């Protein structure tokens, strides 16, 4: 078992958050991690669908590692 073997993109047990209107990565990080500053973890886990951490849209499904 190692993170490099099961990155979030391939892991069906990685939590998914459906972006709601008004969401930001910081708010999402606050919700799941208790710390908005950890939003980079969410951004990195979703580089295949996010090019800019400030640009998310409602309905997007984001992995929450």
């Amino acid at each position, binding site marked *: *078992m190692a*993170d490099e*073997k*099961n990155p*979030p993109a391939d892991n069906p*047990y990685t*939590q998914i958050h459906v972006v709601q209107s008004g969401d930001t990565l910081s708010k999402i990080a606050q919700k799941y*991690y*208790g*710390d908005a500053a950890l939003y980079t973890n969410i951004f990195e886990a979703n580089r295949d669908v996010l090019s800019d951490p400030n640009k998310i849209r409602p309905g997007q499904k984001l992995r929450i590692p």
Partner: protein
Amino acid sequence: MKKSSLWVLAALAAVLVAGCQNQRAPAEQAVASAESTLTSVRDAAMHYEPDKLQAVDAQLTGVKDSLSKGDYKAVLAAMPALNTAINDLRDTATAKQQEAQAANDKAKDAWGPMSADVPKMVDAIQSRVDILSKSHHLPKGVTKDTLAAAKSGVDSMKAAWGAASNAATAGDYSTAVSKGQAIRDQASQVMQSLGMTSS
């Protein structure tokens, strides 16, 4: 005593001895056959019917004792019961062995998907635990104790998974799947405690 009486006595004695010797070969063959059958099922019997095996061994020891004392009549009288006991032992031990094999084969089918699935559950939990460990605060519903329990849970799940994998490698899929299911159940609980269900 008259000579003729002595001759009669001697003749009678000879007949008796000959009669006993006539029973010797059948008695020895019967015991050898019983031992051979018992040997062929001993491994399975030790595993699946140890108490019955112990009883049969005791019976066989008694018969062999009679054989060593030359009591061939007693040996032959005891053989039907001994053979019945050995056959019953063979049948039940073999049936249990086949049942266990069928259960193991079924478990082997379950092991494939489980061996892919469970590590992913644990990895997802590990990832969350690692991130929460860096957090200055914890999310709603997650306490320091919850996080500490999750960390220790991940360690125990990894150790248990090692044992499950070893069992599978050894061909004991029943044990492997049983352990794997326990890990899966534990992982589900930990995920719930960390709020890892999808919204």
